[in-house]
Structures are given as structure tokens and as C-alpha cells.
């Protein structure tokens, strides 16, 4: 039922794992402070007293190894590339511009359908503007409408017409299944009464 946002699960899992790691590491490190350590039960894992965040001697020993610098470089380059890729993936790319139709050898320019639907929705009474985007995989594209209502129009007044437009779109795209998500808003606000 819920039309899932792309990458919701991946992003949320990444956030949860990062958050748990940070929280665990932060709490563990913080318990090294005397004020906290005194109030904790005996079994609580606490960092060794008098230790440092990085052992200078251990790091110097590692640096003498031949493999250390190449390993740091490799991991650094790979991690940078992966993180940059993650960063770029967060920006909603324009979906693929062509959608394959059920008829062999035929494609639809997605923008054509977006424009036609926006035109249809804008002709509904009570709708001020409309923007339509089609995202998603080829088999199950997702239709997203951002509908700006004219002042004083309740959402309930246009829902039937929006249903009708999406039913049209479904017929147009048959047999491909089109999921729809409509976000209603308003554009202008009437000025306050002055009496």
C-alpha cells in the first residue's frame, strides 16, 4: 500500500548503523571519565585508564611495515570513492527519459506523459498548478503529482477528478501498472481580514 520511497530502507539502515556505532563508541569513551566511571556497575566495560586515543608507539611500528602506506592509500581511495558515490546517490536524478511500452520496439518519452497529465490535472476546477513526475523502475513506475490548489479549495473537492486523471493514465499505460502518489498544497493565501 505504502508507496515506498526509493532507497528508504538503505538510507535508514545506514543511518541506524552509523548512529549505533557512534552512540556505542561515544558512550564507551565517555565512561572513561572519572565522574561517570564511579557511578557505573563493576561489570560495565570501560576503557583502560591512562590510555590514549592513539598509541604513538604502535602507530610508529605500523609505519615501519612495508604494507602500511599502500594499505592506507588503497582503503582511503576506495572509501572516498564509495562515500562520494553515496553522496551523489542522494540527489534525485531525473529518471530514465524513455519508458519501454508493452508493444515491442516502442518507447514512450516520459516527459510526454508528464506534460499531458499535468495539462489534464491543471484543467480541473480548483487546481491552480500541477507538476507531474514519473520515477521508478520500468515495470512499476511511480507517478508523483504535486497539486497546488486554488485558494479556498478543500482537498476533498478535487480528489475525484484526480482519481479520474490517474485512471486515464492507467488506461494509457496499460498493461503497465502505475502507482500514484499525490501531494496537495496551496499556492496563495488570502490576506487576513481587516475590519
Amino acid at each position, binding site marked *: 500500500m505504502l508507496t515506498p520511497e526509493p532507497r528508504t530502507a538503505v*538510507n*535508514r539502515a*545506514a*543511518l541506524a548503523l552509523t*548512529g*549505533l556505532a*557512534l552512540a*556505542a*563508541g*561515544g*558512550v564507551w569513551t*565517555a565512561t*572513561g*571519565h*572519572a565522574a*561517570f566511571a564511579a557511578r557505573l556497575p563493576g561489570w560495565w566495560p*570501560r*576503557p583502560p*585508564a591512562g590510555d*590514549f*586515543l*592513539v598509541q604513538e608507539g604502535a602507530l610508529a611500528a605500523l609505519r615501519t611495515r612495508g604494507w602500511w602506506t599502500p594499505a*592506507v*592509500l588503497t582503503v*582511503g581511495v576506495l572509501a*572516498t570513492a564509495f562515500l*562520494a558515490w*553515496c*553522496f551523489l546517490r*542522494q*540527489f534525485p536524478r531525473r529518471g530514465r527519459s*524513455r519508458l519501454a511500452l508493452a*508493444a*515491442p520496439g*516502442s*518507447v*514512450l518519452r516520459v516527459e*510526454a506523459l508528464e506534460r499531458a497529465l499535468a*495539462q489534464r490535472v491543471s*484543467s480541473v476546477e480548483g487546481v491552480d498548478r500541477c507538476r507531474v513526475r514519473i520515477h521508478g523502475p520500468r515495470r512499476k513506475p511511480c507517478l508523483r503529482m504535486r497539486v497546488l*490548489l486554488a485558494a*479556498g479549495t478543500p*482537498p476533498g473537492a478535487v480528489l475525484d477528478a*484526480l482519481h*479520474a486523471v*490517474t*485512471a486515464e493514465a492507467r488506461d*494509457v*499505460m*496499460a*498493461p503497465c*501498472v*502505475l*502507482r500514484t502518489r499525490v*501531494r*496537495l*498544497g496551496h499556492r496563495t493565501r*488570502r490576506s*487576513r481580514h481587516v*475590519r
Partner: protein
Amino acid sequence: MSAPAARRGTTTVADRVVRRIALRAASEALPGPGTGGVGGSATVHGRRAGIALRIAAPYPATLSDTARRVRGHVADRTGELTGLDVAPVRLSITRLAVPAALPAPAAASLAEAPGRARGGHGGRAPRRWWSARRAPVAVLSLLAAVCCAAVTADVMRVRATGAPAGVWRARSADWLFVHGPGDAQVTAGAVALAAAGLWLVLLALAPGRRRRLPLAAASPGWNAAVDRSTVAALLRDAVGDVPGIGAVRVRARRGRVVVTARLAFGDRAEAVRQAASAARRTLADCGLRRTPRLRVRVLPDSGWRPPPGAPAERRRPAPGPGPAEAGTETPARPGPGRGPAEAGTETPARPAPGPAEGGPETRARPAPGRGPADAATEETC
């Protein structure tokens, strides 16, 4: 008499001839002259012709049917007229022609809309829309990428040129070598990190999209939500239209909507009744999946006077907000004829205005405390 076929010469059909024929065939297959906008290209290799077409398809016909029909017709006609073998036509629909005469979409055309549900399927509408959490992941990954890139670049520079490590890296390393878990700075940083981690976990678990209210009208593969600010604007307009109501303030949250209206003139109880009913109607018109609790408050403006024909008991103990709400509501309202010492806040300690205190002005002023008429000043639904 006649030479063998191989020696009689060959007939060559030029690309643009095939193209013209294919375009004409495509226009034949498309209904009406209004669609127009047919373009494309054709190539001939020996006895084989390849055709690629761009067409404007009629809306709202099923596109795959249109595509199938056009492809078949173009291949047949071109093959028939040129005698070439036509490879499968590649078709691209670049425009949808919406006829100007097409009636506006309306509820009438909805009878055959599949999967329509209003209210009856209320349980199937999602309780919330879920955010994809792009922004936090983008910020985190950018921060981490910048750190990784800086360290890697510095290590590379050191290795390539033999120069000493960057000052920032050396300083960071020095700081890490001498600070341990017991240190105050380290502890402060660790607490901050732990808080940030918990915040990230919260972001991962909470749905987000708090500013959208899902609508009850949903069906499989179809759902809608309205901006909270839109609901607030609708309520503001609806309550503002009630006679006598001046400025209106609406706080629309997901579970609770509070409408605070200022009464400029007219009977207060009547204004409350009308405002509450207008707000309730508007909220119902929105068709939200979960209708928030509604609370409507009407507070008299500074210049408000009770209507002359009003009953006496409604005139005197003019209902006012209780002390709990007074803190947020009343300081902005200077009472008429109120002394400077009283003007700031309205607390129970303030002497209640009695008949002995002054003329009709003070009698009209709202008094703290909730009398029997108090229930009329706000309605909770």
C-alpha cells in the same frame, strides 16, 4: 529475349523515399489530423530497410495499442510500396496529443475508475508518508568523504614528494597521542558523538514527513497527502469568514488543531458556535485519514463591546480564557481602561473587575475564571 534478372540492372529506393512513405503510413495509422508531429528516419541497406519513427500519440488511448497499430501499418505499407524487407520499426512516442475538446476530468468519469475507495478503505491509507532520509545521509557521507579524501591526499603527497605531513594532520595526530578517555575534552566530544548517534538512530526509526497529512481516500497503488499548512490556511479562511471574527490564528498539528480567533464585534456565543461549525466542516472537507482533534477559541478583541440587545448575564461575566491559557493569549490584548500595572499579564491575583470598579467598560472586560457561560467561548471537538 529477356536477360537474366541479375543482368537487367537493379532498382534502388533512396532512404528519403522510404522515409517519406513511412511517415505518410504513420499519419494514416494515427486517427485525426490533429495529432500531427510525425518525424523519423529510414536507412536502406541492400534490400532491407530500417525505420525509426517519432510520433505524437492521441491521449487517452492506450499507448501500446497505438504503438502496435502504427508499427504494423508502417511496416506493411512500406514493404508493399517499396518492395523492400522492412526490419521491425522502432517507434518512439515523443508527445501525447490532448484534444482541446476532451472534457475536464470529473467525478462523472469515475464510475469505471478501478480501485476507487473513499472512506470505505480508510484503513488501507498509510498512516504516514515515510521520508527517504536523503539529507542526513547526504550530509554524513559528504563529511566522511571529505575527511577520507583529505587524509588520503595528504598521505599521497607525502609519499610522492617526500615532504613532511600536513600541519593539520600532524597536529591532529599529536592531539590523539596525548589525550585519552579520561580527559575532559575527549569526554565532551564522546558525549557529543553519542548524542549525535542517538539522533541518527531516531532519524532512522521515525517516519519523517511531519508536515504532510495523509488523506483517507486511498486505494491500492494510489494515495494522497495534503500539506499541513494548506489545512491551516483553509481553516483560517473558513473561520475568518464568520461575521464578527477578526484575525485568526491556526496551529495545525498532526493530532490536534487549535484555532484562535479574535472577535471584533457581535455576540460571542454565536460567533463561537459559527466558528466551530465552520472549522469542523472545513476539516471534514479535507478528508484526512485521521481527523485531528479540533479546538476553537474566540477571544474578544480590545475594542469588542457586547451587542446592546444581549442578555444581561451574558454581558457581565464575559467569559475569558482560564489562567492556563492566559499566559499565551492575553498579554497581547490590552484591556480597555486597564491601568498600566495591570496591562502586562492576567493572573488570578489581579483584582476581579466588579461593578464598583468602574463604568460599563470594565464590566465588558473579560474576567478570569470560568463561569457557566465559559463553555461557549471554546469548543473542543
